[in-house]
């Protein structure tokens, strides 16, 4: 078959409205994907659709989605709305290995699994998500998280924080500690602050929320602060770094949260600690000293170990935030690049979009969007594009963005897990 013949055939198929052929033609090889979240499950699906042999390694049978989990904490949404399984992915033909990856030998191109078996690969995609650092904040370890939940990985922690808020006495104090950059979901702590404030205002109006932040600027800041002034002036007290907001230690026994300037007694304390890429990244040698994974912005291939690609929250994706939307977009771009590389074609420089919605109250949504492209070796903002919702938007726009947020969740979870 000549190139011309193939093109003629493609044109004919397109004209007839027929499905187009698998691009994987010419792409041969075994791909292993580690991590069944928004990045990994997406990449596995794209690779499988292209006709490649792909194994998705994921130990959990249920994936608890983080987006919208702040609504669960505020009693606005059932936890069941965050649960997704891998049945549909299996049914579509993707091999899902229900175990975890323990080690990677980048030279031998082999993944060792927790059950003792191994998987050989031609290309490996790591989408392992984050690990919470229980060595970064004095007093805050895994045991402390049972008293002072982080709820930064959805699941039991989300429900724990929701229960604590519901059980809190009238007039209680909630403390929310926010880490410095980088961390999963940059606007997430501020959406959480907003929805906890909404919960307190409507259910426990004498209670207070103190937000202690390790930085002075944050995502969608003007929009959040405008909403806080309007909606929660008597509930939410925001303390930035410059005003002594950085938490320096916690005591889960005494339920106190300390900064350099004061110690606050909390009835409920949500401590979001500093983070790093999940442990398999370091085990594979793809995490650098920052704890995160430097990557090539065209292929998402690790800068440190060839033939291993890193996507999602674990990757250092330049201007792209650590979000579910970004992980999903990266999963698609990375999978397409892997298909090209296995077919010995050079991948085209991609563009990626991110859109992140936050709810500051039910029916009040705000967003930040960005378009990204490889520039000088990193994923950079496309200048002139992106940005946040306008500050002066009417209520109808806020309602519309809240509806879009809800619909985004429905669409992306269906695309990834449905």
């Amino acid at each position: 078959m000549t190139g011309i013949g193939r093109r003629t055939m493609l044109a004919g198929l397109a004209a007839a409205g027929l499905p187009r052929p698998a691009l994987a033609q010419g792409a041969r090889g075994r791909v292993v994907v580690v991590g069944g979240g928004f990045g990994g499950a997406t990449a596995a699906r794209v690779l499988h659709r292209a006709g490649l042999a792909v194994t998705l390694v994921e130990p959990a049978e249920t994936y608890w989605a983080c987006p919208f989990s702040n609504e669960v904490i505020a009693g606005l949404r059932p936890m069941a709305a965050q649960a997704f399984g891998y049945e549909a992915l299996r049914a579509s033909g993707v091999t899902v290995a229900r175990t975890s990856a323990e080690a990677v030998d980048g030279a031998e191109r082999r993944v060792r699994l927790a059950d003792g078996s191994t998987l050989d690969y031609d290309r490996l995609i790591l989408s392992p998500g984050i690990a919470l650092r229980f060595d970064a904040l004095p007093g805050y370890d895994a045991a402390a998280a049972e008293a002072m939940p982080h709820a930064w990985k959805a699941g039991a922690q989300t429900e724990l924080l929701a229960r604590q808020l519901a059980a809190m006495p009238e007039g209680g104090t909630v403390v929310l500690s926010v880490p410095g950059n980088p961390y999963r979901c940059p606007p997430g702590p501020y959406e959480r602050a907003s929805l906890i404030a909404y919960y307190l205002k409507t259910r426990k109006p004498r209670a207070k929320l103190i937000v202690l932040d390790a930085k002075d600027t944050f995502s969608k800041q003007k929009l959040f602060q405008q909403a806080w002034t309007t909606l929660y002036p008597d509930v939410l007290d925001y303390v930035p770094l410059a005003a002594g907001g950085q938490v320096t230690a916690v005591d889960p026994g005494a339920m106190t949260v300390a900064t350099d300037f004061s110690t606050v007694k909390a009835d409920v304390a949500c401590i979001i600690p500093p983070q790093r890429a999940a442990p398999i990244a370091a085990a594979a040698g793809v995490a650098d000293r920052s704890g995160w994974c430097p990557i090539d912005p065209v292929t998402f291939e690790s800068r440190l170990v060839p033939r291993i690609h890193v996507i999602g929250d674990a990757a250092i994706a330049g201007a792209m935030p650590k979000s579910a939307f970004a992980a999903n977009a990266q999963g698609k771009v990375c999978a397409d690049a892997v298909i090209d590389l296995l077919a010995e074609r050079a991948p085209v420089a991609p563009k990626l979009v991110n859109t992140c919605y936050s709810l500051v109250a039910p029916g009040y949504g705000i967003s930040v969007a960005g378009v990204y492209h490889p520039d000088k070796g990193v994923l950079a903002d496309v200048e002139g594009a992106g940005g946040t919702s306008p500050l002066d938007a009417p209520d109808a726009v806020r309602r519309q963005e809240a509806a879009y947020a809800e619909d985004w969740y429905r669409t992306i979870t269906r695309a990834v897990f449905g």
Partner: protein
Amino acid sequence: MRAGLLLLLLASPAVAAPPPGASSCSGCHGAPGGAVPSLSGHSAEDIAASLAAFRTGARPATVMNRIAKGFSEEESRAIAVWLAGGGP
């Protein structure tokens, strides 16, 4: 040989290389019936015209105006053609 190849092609799952940016669209745009408009059933001309109107601000939007500014006319047209052809 042609007929044989045609069968082979039809038996394969439908995948075509998305042009830069195109694979991100399905992050929000899915099946019809939701708050976010579905892109299925739209012609390449319609999608390209919408992207152009979002880019210039001629068509009001919440977020598409911010996203469309990240793509040239040529890039937008390539995305529109790919989406109209069925996308992913």
